[in-house]
């Protein structure tokens, strides 16, 4: 057991050892200062030239968002048609069929949005062409989109007054060439030399030791799994994601993958501090986020190690903890650690099945995605936290009777309205979706649909409700993990979660960038004795309190009906 605990401590230590210098590096790189990776400049200039882009053209917040939306809409349209007609395209050794319109709708939104909710199984629902040319491509570009938009916010608060938020294309491409691609190469090499397939060979067939005929799905997975984690994407090659022994063959690859999915979210917070020259603020944000993560981590790890009380009653040994849905080579400790980090960040890859974890573990997974601002996804985590900070600034301002300010800019009605709308969007999407699905299951269980609502749930009672709640929470948070027992491969789930993902991705990007753009234009007010200081412990606690209150008010009733009710029913 101790070796399992050492494993996660080492994983965390290595994450910090990489993330701190990486944060410094990113700050310098995005600021355009001299840095050792400048040898890549000629390549970047070549790409810009071929694309007809001037990377030095300044953009205000509206132009920045227009460029971002244009390319994202292009990917949505192009990807949708590729998914539907993948059977006619090359690189399809297993002869997989095209996706139906509603499945393609869901899948392409999911990948463009960095969500990677998967209503298909990689082995049968996607060709090698789709996996690389659409999914892996979007793994890189959706992460870079999020990071580019976060850097626009960095830029807004670096100078006293600014209208220029930088160039979208410049930040976007550099995120790929200077960070995501080089690190993906390293990770993909570690994976392939530890047993993850990387060749384009199709399915293999053999006769097993005791005489069964077995087919094995394979394919160039290592390349995709590297960026799937680094870009906090989470969409895996195989159906079982990183629980699959080819996708995650041993403890070393497991450590590599869990470190890879956490370094960029941590580094981006630190980069923010280095970039705007307010290190203390960044460390305060890091502290609040880390405190939040530990609040999820400690009960999750202990809960999984204690095992299932109903199985304990059967009198067997659960010395290794709860094992349903988990893999022996990782053990429950590393699986619990992963389940927290994959839900606080927006990765959503899994190395064990979340549907089968303990009831309270499900509660922490849900809460982590509902908050969605403790580190969060590549770039977007910072933006979600930024919204919480604006609300905290506003409330603190009301409490002490001063005009609220953020880094020398007055926060006024317009910014607070945007922040409030973004804050209300998440509970609205999650609750409305879950309510609609619950209504279909209870009132129209046997309606004349191809897949009847009565067959959706894989588990009865409270846990069945949790499955639906989890699906919408994961969609809204652009997380992409699931309580996979849910029968979600049908038109109802494809369409409703597709819409939730789309709104849950782009509004929380547009909102913060708009607020930052609006604030940056305003006159800079120098710090005085009357200024609310946002890099103090007091303000950190205030932000944390705002996060707790907002989320508790929004979600407690739903959580009480799902994981909490299940937990207490098991104690009887």
């Amino acid at each position, binding site marked *: 057991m101790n*070796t399992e605990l050492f494993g996660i401590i080492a994983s965390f230590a290595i994450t910090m050892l990489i993330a701190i210098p990486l944060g410094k590096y990113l700050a310098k790189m995005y600021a355009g200062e001299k840095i050792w990776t400048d040898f890549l400049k000629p390549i970047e200039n070549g790409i810009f030239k071929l694309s007809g882009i001037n990377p030095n053209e300044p953009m205000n917040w509206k132009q920045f968002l227009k460029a971002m939306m244009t390319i994202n809409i292009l990917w949505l349209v192009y990807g949708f048609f590729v998914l539907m007609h993948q059977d006619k395209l090359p690189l399809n050794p297993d002869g997989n069929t095209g996706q139906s319109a509603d499945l393609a709708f869901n899948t392409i939104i999911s990948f463009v949005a960095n969500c990677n909710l998967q209503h298909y199984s990689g082995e049968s629902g996607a060709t090698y062409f789709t996996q690389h040319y659409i999914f892996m491509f979007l793994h890189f570009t959706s992460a870079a989109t999020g990071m580019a938009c976060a850097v626009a916010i960095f830029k807004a608060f670096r100078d006293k007054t600014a209208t220029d938020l930088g160039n979208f294309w410049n930040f976007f491409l550099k995120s790929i060439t200077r960070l995501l691609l080089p690190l993906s190469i390293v990770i993909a090499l570690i994976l392939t030399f530890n047993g993850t397939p990387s*060749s384009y060979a199709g399915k293999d067939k053999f006769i097993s030791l005791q005489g069964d005929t077995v087919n094995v799905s394979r394919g160039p997975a290592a*390349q995709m799994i590297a960026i799937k984690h680094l870009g906090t994407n989470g969409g895996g090659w195989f159906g079982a994601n990183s629980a699959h022994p080819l996708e995650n063959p041993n403890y070393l690859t497991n450590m590599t993958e869990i470190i890879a999915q956490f370094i960029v979210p941590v580094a981006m917070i630190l980069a923010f501090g280095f970039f705007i020259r307010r290190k203390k603020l960044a460390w305060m944000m890091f502290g609040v986020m880390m405190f939040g993560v530990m609040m999820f981590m400690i009960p999750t790890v202990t809960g999984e190690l204690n095992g299932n009380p109903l199985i304990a009653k059967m009198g067997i040994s659960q010395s290794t903890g*709860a094992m349903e849905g988990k893999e022996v080579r990782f053990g429950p400790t590393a699986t619990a650690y992963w389940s927290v980090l994959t839900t606080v960040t927006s990765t959503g890859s899994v190395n064990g*099945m979340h549907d089968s974890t303990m009831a309270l573990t499900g509660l922490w997974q849900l809460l982590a995605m509902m908050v969605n601002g403790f580190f969060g996804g590549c770039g977007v985590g910072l933006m979600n936290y930024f919204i919480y900070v604006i609300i905290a600034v506003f409330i603190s301002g009301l409490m002490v009777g001063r005009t609220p300010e953020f880094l020398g800019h007055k926060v006024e009605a317009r910014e607070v309205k945007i922040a409030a709308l973004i804050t209300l969007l998440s509970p609205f999407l999650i609750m409305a979706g879950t309510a609609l699905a619950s209504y279909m299951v209870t009132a129209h269980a046997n309606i004349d649909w191809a897949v009847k609502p009565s067959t959706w749930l894989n588990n009865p009672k409270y846990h069945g409700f949790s499955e639906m709640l989890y699906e919408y929470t994961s969609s809204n948070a652009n997380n992409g993990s699931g309580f996979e027992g849910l029968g979600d491969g049908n038109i109802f789930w494809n369409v409703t979660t597709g819409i939730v993902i789309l709104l849950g991705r782009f509004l929380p990007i547009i909102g913060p960038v708009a607020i930052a753009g609006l604030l940056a234009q305003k006159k800079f007010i120098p710090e005085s004795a009357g200024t609310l200081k946002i890099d103090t412990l007091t303000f950190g606690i205030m932000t944390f309190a705002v996060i707790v209150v907002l989320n508790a008010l929004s979600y407690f009733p739903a959580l009480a009906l799902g994981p909490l009710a299940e937990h207490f029913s098991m104690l009887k």
Partner: protein
Amino acid sequence: MKKYLIPSIRITIVLTIVLCVIYPVSIMLAGKLSKGAGNGETIVVNGKVVGYANVGQSFTKPQYFWGRPSAVAYNAAGSGGSNKGPSNPDYLKDVSNRIDTLLKYHPYLKRSEIPADLVTASGSGLDPDISVQAAQIQVKRVAQFRKLDEQKVAALVSSQIEQPLLGIFGPARINVLKLNVALDGLK
């Protein structure tokens, strides 16, 4: 938005070449140097492939060590767990039945000696490993069926233990396929 459409199309094409051709093909070529040449590492007995080292396979015959229950019956053309919740009555019944089956084949066992991994389904349905305890409790049955010395089989199990990474990180485990291949070689 029109202004941004042409650059969007062009950068998408250029990046497709970099990210979807140059990057994966380079990794594929480097992977040729790995064990299994990037196709997945196989295990060969008498010149025949009997399985993939990392992909679990079904063992139900009494003369072999058994792996974990699988929600996909070890069909490696797919993968997945049971996705049964911890309080699901059907799931609890499945576990209870698996305990009874184990006790039937291992009448010498006490319930408290059965490790959870042997009666619960894995996440992938293709878990290649079992815990050390899960292998040890099967030694007596395997030895009886094969008419082998129990000590010898127990020693084989010990020799097949894969220790934690660098001796300190993660759990110890036993690869069921490798263990059974070694078992077939035992005289």
